[in-house]
């Protein structure tokens, strides 16, 4: 049998033969080929993922389920996860992005949670090029088209532009759900005799073997891959959410799985393996959209908006009634068995008979060789801009797609439905209230591919910290993280080294900051002829504010406030927006992770917010202090005078990035307490809030209207 045609390696094929003590048949090979693909098996990254901390006092569910869950008190918890839909979005931007949103929402639903918010990490090539612009609009409309209709607000995210994403766009969708502890649904609770019920849409040929497609590089002509992209229907998804929650409230669901990658096969074999049972699926009982589908096509179809429910046989009538109310297909397609086998039966004949554990968990890990290179670094002497041209440089930064106003994107998303959105998109953090409590949850999503390209370890750590610092500054404690590891092929030793080192950096930062990584996803092979992406791990963080008045806003300067730069005077130039704009590509050294320093920053930032010591606080991030000042000016609608006198190397002070640095506006009566809190860490008065323009003494003055015109483009 030609195992390589099914994406299997020789060693993998040998293990299969050894386990089965016979030759696998074609259907079995097709199923194992998909389940053992990179996308489903994590075979290249499992050893790396083990480094990520996943435990914590508040962790109710770590990795290994559809999503992670963390306690937020009062019997409530949040479930969250980020997942990639990169390859499908490259081929069919609207449907690829839409089904990415749909899939992650079902992952949250499968835990028993009500999805309350989505975020998206989007990575595109230069938007000024027509081909990229078309793709961007397709992705944005797809996210909106699905999320808006399904009634889950899209409250924020991260948008990154770089030429390396031309032809290799990344679309990472994150969803956060809310649930009561006692309503958590897990996949290890099935027992022999329970029914496997398919709820939702009919099964068709769409998305067959999509997981395997997502595990290779993209071809020159991607049109032939269209059948591997799924088609979404948010209307049906909305009905699935409502129906599943009625069933959960009635206590009728024992276990539940989203039918995502590898459809029936992955969902059924996963419940069986985790519950130490077997499962037998009768493919003739699956409601189909088209005739003539083979057993393996049915088993691997990735048709959207389908859930696998495990229920007690005596409850089937009630479940079917509820499905009928919501106009959904509902069929018993199999049952859980005593043996530990995953079996497919077609017309009474067993066509697939595999150990359930082998299907989902049997793929051997691959340890790719890593090069011993030290990243791309290059020159460390960066171009500088003479003071007379700072204003022009600042305008160029604010005009760049990564820093400019994102409202043309997020206004296409319903970011308010469910009426929990306290801080909408357009701010470094998105904040939701939890109804009937005093609590707020705060969300961020970050990535720093340039730092990861230059120094993967530091870049990995900085990615997590970039997401954490805005939470701390707004007063939120970090509860936990979800990550999406987007990389090119691990088979190239340089790529593998970057993967290995950046995950090590991410793990180090997460461990030091007590931030459990409770869920995530890996997407490798993000490359196309002529281009490969930078290492682009994405981190989504969930933070908690216990009281509404613990929240410190941004963009809320008050007349007469003093402006302080808290933390080190300088970040790093290497890989910064400013450096890349001046030099054309990332070079130099990014910020180096210092756990002790970050912890002190965290404690002081939380203290500042909780003691109400400032009127406004913003982390110095993309574009440096200059852009932080400009954005505070724009959102506050009030000006400031900045005095750069006496600063050594003021260009770096104003345009470097990274590290624990924040800009605070403090009113006169709080200054003493603020300075006492921060003085041991670094706290410099750089100016005061005043007038209607941003004035950097001895350098430039900007009027709000001019700044807005540049920023809004």
């Amino acid at each position, binding site marked *: 049998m030609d195992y390589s045609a099914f994406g299997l390696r020789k060693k993998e094929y040998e293990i299969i033969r050894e386990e089965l003590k016979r030759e696998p048949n074609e259907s079995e090979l097709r199923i194992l080929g998909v389940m053992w693909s990179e996308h489903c098996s994590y075979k290249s990254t499992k050893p790396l993922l083990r480094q990520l901390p996943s435990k914590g006092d508040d962790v109710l569910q770590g990795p290994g389920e559809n999503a992670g869950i963390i306690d937020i008190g009062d019997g409530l918890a949040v479930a969250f996860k980020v997942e990639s839909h990169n390859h499908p979005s490259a081929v069919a931007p609207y449907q690829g992005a839409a089904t990415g949103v749909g899939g992650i929402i079902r992952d949250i639903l499968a835990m028993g949670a009500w999805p309350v918010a989505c975020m998206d990490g989007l990575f595109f090539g230069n938007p000024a090029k027509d081909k990229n612009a078309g793709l961007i609009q397709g992705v944005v409309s797809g996210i909106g088209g699905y999320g808006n*209709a399904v009634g889950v607000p899209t409250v924020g995210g991260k948008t990154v532009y770089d030429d390396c994403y031309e032809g290799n766009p990344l679309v990472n969708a994150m969803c956060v759900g809310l649930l009561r502890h006692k309503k958590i649904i897990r996949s290890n609770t099935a027992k022999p005799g329970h029914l496997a019920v398919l709820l939702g849409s009919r099964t068709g040929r769409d998305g067959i073997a999509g997981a395997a497609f997502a595990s290779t590089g993209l071809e020159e002509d991607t049109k032939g891959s269209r059948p591997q992209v799924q088609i979404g229907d948010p209307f049906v998804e909305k009905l699935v959410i409502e129906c599943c929650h009625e069933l959960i409230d009635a206590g009728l669901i024992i276990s539940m799985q989203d039918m995502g990658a590898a459809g029936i096969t992955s969902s059924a074999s996963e419940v069986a393996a985790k519950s130490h049972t077997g499962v037998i699926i009768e493919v003739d009982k699956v409601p189909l959209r088209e005739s003539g589908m083979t057993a393996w096509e049915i088993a691997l179809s990735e048709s959207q908006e389908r859930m696998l429910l495990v229920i007690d046989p005596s409850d089937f009538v009630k479940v079917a009634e509820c499905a009928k109310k919501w106009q959904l297909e509902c069929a018993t397609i199999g049952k859980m068995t005593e043996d530990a086998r995953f079996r497919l039966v077609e017309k009474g004949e067993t066509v697939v008979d595999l150990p359930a554990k082998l299907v989902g968990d049997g793929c051997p890990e691959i340890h790719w060789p890593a090069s011993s290179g030290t990243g791309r670094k290059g020159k460390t002497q960066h171009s500088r801009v003479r003071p007379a041209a700072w204003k022009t440089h600042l305008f160029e930064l604010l005009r760049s797609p990564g820093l400019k106003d994102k409202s043309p994107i997020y*206004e296409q998303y319903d970011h*308010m439905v469910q009426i929990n959105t306290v801080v909408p998109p357009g701010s470094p953090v998105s904040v939701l209230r939890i109804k009937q409590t005093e609590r707020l949850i705060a969300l961020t999503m970050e990535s720093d591919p340039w730092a990861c390209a230059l120094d993967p370890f530091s870049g990995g750590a900085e990615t997590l910290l970039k997401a954490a610092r805005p939470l701390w500054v707004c007063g939120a404690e970090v509860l936990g993280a979800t990550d999406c590891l987007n990389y090119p092929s691990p088979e190239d030793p340089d790529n593998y080294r970057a993967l290995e080192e950046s995950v090590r950096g991410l793990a180090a930062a997460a461990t030091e900051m007590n931030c459990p990584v409770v869920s995530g996803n890996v997407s490798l092979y993000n490359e196309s002829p002529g281009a490969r992406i930078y290492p682009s791990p994405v981190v989504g963080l969930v933070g908690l504010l216990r009281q509404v008045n613990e929240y410190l806003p941004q963009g809320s300067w008050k007349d007469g406030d003093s402006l302080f730069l808290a933390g080190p005077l300088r970040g790093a130039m290497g890989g910064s927006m400013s450096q890349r704009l001046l030099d054309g590509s990332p070079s130099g050294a990014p910020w180096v992770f210092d756990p002790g320093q970050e912890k002190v920053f965290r404690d002081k930032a939380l203290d500042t917010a909780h003691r109400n010591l400032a009127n406004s606080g913003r982390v110095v991030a993309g574009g440096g202090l200059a852009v932080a000042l400009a954005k505070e000016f724009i959102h506050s609608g009030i000006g400031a005078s900045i005095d750069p006198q006496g600063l050594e190397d003021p260009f770096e002070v104003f345009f470097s990035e990274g590290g624990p640095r924040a800009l605070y506006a403090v009113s006169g009566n709080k200054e003493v307490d603020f300075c006492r809190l921060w003085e041991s860490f670094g706290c410099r008065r750089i100016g005061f809030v005043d007038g209607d323009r941003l004035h950097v003494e001895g350098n430039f003055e900007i009027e709000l209207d001019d700044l807005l015109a540049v920023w809004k483009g």
Partner: protein
Amino acid sequence: MRVAVIVFPGSNCDRDVVHSLETTVGAEAERVWYESHDLPREVELVVLPGGFSYGDYLRCGAMAARTPVMDSVRRFAENGGLVLGICNGFQVLTESHLLPGAILANRSLTFLCKNCTIRVERNDTPFTALCAPNQVLQMPIAHHEGLFFLPEAQMQRLERENRIVFRYCSPEGETQDAYNPNGSMGHVAGIVNERGNVLGLMPHPERASERILGSADGAFIWNSLHSWLEEGGHR
């Protein structure tokens, strides 16, 4: 105040409206499934909430307008009952011919979710009784189809009959193209029927009824309805 909030397959603001009614005026709000042939007894207000009924397939609101519950809503309105359609609910009302006009795709041809300001054109309706004349309210919109359209002659009649209750405007209360988010004819954000008991609007009062959400102006509508009913108002 007893309220029925109608739920169609695909409605997604029904719970938001219930929450808003309960927290602002302590209303007893009940979600009513679209297959019901009768409204709950003693209902004083029916709300058709926002969302994507039937996925907005065919035409926004078109399928919902032909459901069993809409027969009851029509009878309720004919008897003078108060009916409020928000966003998709407004579309259902025009598709049901309880209100005139058609609601077309936004001028931008994209979905738009943003805060808007609207001017209260009439404060003699049950929905606006507590608003000051020409009061400006801040409320968000969230729709792909929000451009109100009527043939010129009918539009003139609507104006003549003073049936426009809300218009998009600047924060200072001026109607200007720059503040008309979707290109609505006459800057229309909300209209009322001849009798004045059926109102449709595109902005979402339930999204702007609590300070923590950035605006509490939507509560003027709930409070107006509440006090109108308390005072035994009838149309």
